[in-house]
């Protein structure tokens, strides 16, 4: 048979919550994925990852879907449900921006480690929303990983003036460590989006 061409993307639209993140929004359906990627006993530095998504008018976006994929503190990606049950680390999270004040998103996870192929600690991100006909990919790096960031080939490939859009800022608070990462769809300081 002749292989068919790739199916085109279409926008996720404004009404995805009851299908993709039902529990977060209080709908009567279980959620396969959520905002918590790690248990209290998961090895590594427990972190809160939060931020807002801004449109070109500098207004916060309250109907974005944020999905993250990351390695654990040792730089490994869990490969089975047994591994996840043992470590408490799922490696994937999904939230909508419609339930927190300021249209913030928030994940509870552990800070990822350097991956075996030597990339700086990072989190891969997919952003979908009404108005976006194809999702976008971006990457979160960490402000307290200057040495690793300086050697990272992905960061190195980005124009220096745009690199800060990929760096989450560490905030040390009494309750623990927070990293803040805002996403700007366009305008000044548009986030770097990747063709992967």
């Amino acid at each position, binding site marked *: 048979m002749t*292989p068919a061409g790739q199916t085109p993307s279409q926008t996720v639209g404004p*009404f995805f919550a009851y299908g993709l993140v039902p529990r977060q929004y209080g709908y009567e359906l279980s959620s396969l994925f959520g905002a918590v990627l790690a248990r209290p006993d998961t090895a590594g530095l427990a972190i809160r990852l939060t931020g807002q998504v801004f449109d070109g008018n500098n207004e916060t976006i309250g109907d974005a879907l944020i999905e993250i994929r990351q390695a654990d503190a040792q730089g490994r990606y869990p490969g089975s449900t047994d591994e996840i049950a043992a470590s408490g680390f799922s490696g994937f999270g999904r939230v909508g921006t419609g339930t927190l004040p300021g249209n913030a998103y928030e994940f509870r996870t552990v800070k990822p480690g350097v991956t075996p192929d030597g990339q700086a600690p990072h989190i*891969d991100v997919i952003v979908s929303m*009404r108005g976006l006909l194809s999702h976008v990919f971006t990457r979160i790096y960490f402000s307290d990983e200057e040495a690793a960031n300086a050697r990272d080939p992905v960061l190195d*490939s980005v124009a220096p003036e745009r690199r800060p859009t990929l760096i989450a800022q560490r905030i040390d608070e009494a309750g623990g460590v927070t990293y803040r990462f805002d996403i700007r769809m366009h305008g000044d300081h548009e986030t770097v989006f990747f063709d992967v």
Partner: protein
Amino acid sequence: MTSPEKSPFALSPRDWQSQPPYLHPPYKSSVARAPRHALVPLKASLGELTQPVYGHDSASDIDHDLTRNALKNGEPIGERIIVTGRVLDDAGRPVPDTLVEIWQANAAGRYVHRTDQHDAPLDPNFLGAGRTLTDSQGRYRFVTIKPGAYPWGNHHNAWRPNHIHFSLFGLHFASRLVTQMYFPGDPLLELDPIYQCTPEGIRSRLVAGFSLDHTEPGRALGYEFDIVLRGARATPMQGQP
């Protein structure tokens, strides 16, 4: 580290000739939200980064049947339909054991979502969300109610064609696809800026085919909708991690 070009796990590239542009002014919401900079090629291979891990129990026995997965006091109103198809990669290989999530409006064109303000009735027996895993041949199958058209504020007298939203990963994080399936013969398709944003000659891939083979006599019309994702460009050699 391995360069993306040399990685044995490289995915076939995203075919931008088949994709809508980010900025499509007739679709008004894209104006404030579409990125303006060109995408930056990622200098790392994401091909080895798998889809999220989930168990085979992720979808329950009735999660694929939207006519049964939210019953309260009767059956949902509307035309029962079967939506089935295969998930393939762009080399024609089936994508087995992969999650397919869908959501849609009810027969009256109303979404359960609280921010949907369309003045049409909710159906107490219809949530409009389902999920399933593909089988070993990449096939999925949903039973649902044909979604209604609904008005939206994009322009004067704008109506979305009947559609079902689909969300998939495939085997890889980078083969993620969020899309919409449309129905054959819908007169609203040629008026819809979301459907029309996809290049001509390509957009028909988003339209399901009516299938008598998948129609259940006395029960439900069948529609077939195959989905093609990016696939691995080369098979990793044995023994490689």
